[in-house]
């Protein structure tokens, strides 16, 4: 990594930003969300915090422009230069400009706004380009579903922490730092010992999460695809606890520790993560083991240890009379489940390398399978 000449940095930890205008390529809330997530990338590894203002001069002014736009670095149409940003300081310093001749997107097609914004905001905070190809601050744009290049590398983390230090470890809400080095082991789908962190459906597909990856099984292709979580949802952590699709709202809720995120398609919704206690859990609940939505009843079941809670998605409230013991209502299912899926009228409980098909009408386990049976193993 490197910093700008003279190593300019903000002399305060609370920094304001303002989105001055918007691209027409994306809904405004998607731009807001991408910028918010891009700032969070840096916030998670430093003592810095960011607040958005809607008028006046912010430390970081974010704008979309084409061609000559009032500085000495005109944009150049489609391709080549995508954006630029200035190092910390007064006036235009710290500002980030995005070339609106690009086709801004939230996914792999076009130019991914979150990825570019995270890079540019790195400049706004004082990082110069890195010659480490794996780093976010490498100058050449790459969006590959097979690479973890949209996460902070150790190089980026060391760079930003050389300016601002690390996030105080006493902060209980700290999210584990996403890092690409050292690389954790890649899970193998037909490993007989394979277990899952979380399982959910998404728009008719089955998703099986494990560490930094997930398998995606569609109805059209029985051979599951294997992806990095970060390739679809760059701001999500790895090693998830639970996930479920509230398909009456076209969103998937993802849980890790005391926080949860909402995603719609490949877009993480603005305003997340939120605390799990906002759903109505008591303070004693520190994390969720598994979650599943039963669409016929519009109820979500949350499994924690040997108990489960039932959440009414219509009222957005926990049902009274819960928690109840898992074994009381799901006889044959052992406490502490890893993940649960609801499909074809059955509940599928995952625990370690085993999977239990449970018939809710007969209130009995009808089949015991390997966890990875869904992956054609």
């Amino acid at each position, binding site marked *: 990594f490197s910093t*700008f*000449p003279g190593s300019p940095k903000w002399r305060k930890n609370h920094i304001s930003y303002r989105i001055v205008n918007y691209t027409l390529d994306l809904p405004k809330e998607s731009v807001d969300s991408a910028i918010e997530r891009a700032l969070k990338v840096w916030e998670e590894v430093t003592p810095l915090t960011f607040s958005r203002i809607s008028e006046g001069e912010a430390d970081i002014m974010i704008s979309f422009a084409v061609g000559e736009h009032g500085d000495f*670095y005109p*944009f150049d149409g489609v*391709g*080549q*230069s*995508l*954006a*630029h*940003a200035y190092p910390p300081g007064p006036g235009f310093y710290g500002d980030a400009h995005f*070339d609106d001749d*690009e086709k801004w997107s939230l996914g792999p097609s076009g*130019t991914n706004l979150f990825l*570019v914004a995270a*890079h*540019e905001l790195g*400049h706004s905070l004082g990082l*110069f*380009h890195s*010659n*480490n*190809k794996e780093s976010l601050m490498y*100058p*050449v*744009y*790459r969006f590959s579903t097979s690479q973890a290049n949209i996460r902070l590398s150790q190089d980026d983390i060391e760079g930003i922490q050389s300016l601002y230090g690390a996030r105080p470890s006493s902060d209980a809400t700290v999210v584990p730092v996403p890092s690409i080095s050292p690389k954790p082991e890649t899970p193998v789908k037909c490993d007989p010992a394979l277990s899952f962190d979380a399982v959910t459906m998404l728009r008719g597909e089955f998703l099986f999460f494990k560490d930094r990856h997930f398998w995606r099984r569609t109805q059209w292709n029985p051979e599951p695809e294997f992806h990095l979580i970060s390739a679809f949802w760059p701001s999500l952590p790895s090693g998830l606890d639970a996930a479920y699709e509230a398909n009456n709202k076209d969103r998937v809720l993802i849980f890790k520790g005391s926080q949860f995120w909402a995603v719609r398609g490949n877009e993480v919704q603005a305003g997340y993560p939120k605390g799990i206690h906002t759903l109505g859990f008591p303070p004693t609940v520190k994390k969720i083991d598994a979650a599943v939505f039963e669409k016929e009843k519009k109820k979500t079941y949350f499994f924690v240890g040997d108990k489960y809670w039932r959440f009414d998605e219509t009222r957005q409230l926990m049902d009274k009379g819960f928690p109840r013991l898992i074994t009381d209502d799901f006889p044959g299912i052992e406490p502490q489940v890893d993940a649960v899926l609801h499909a074809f009228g059955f509940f599928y409980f995952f625990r370690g390398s085993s999977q239990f098909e449970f018939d809710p009408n007969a209130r009995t386990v009808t089949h015991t399978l390997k966890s990875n049976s869904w992956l054609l193993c």
Partner: protein
Amino acid sequence: YPLHGAVRQDHSTMDLAQQYLEKYYNFRKNEKQFYKRKDSSSVVKKIQEMQKFLGLEITGELDSNTVELMHKPRCGVPDVGG
């Protein structure tokens, strides 16, 4: 501009290289066209500087890897400090 056995470069590649080096590597603008320069040492040096920064093999030539990377979209902030 000597190509040292590399694939013959067309003018558009040369133009791209000249603009790229000027924009991102503080290459001194020259009235002469990049590909007509008699003294190529400063050009080679700049290409080497770019290749080193971008993690490419340092050949000083506009080889296919270098040209391919120059075509990719990137951040507009120059790679060398002003």
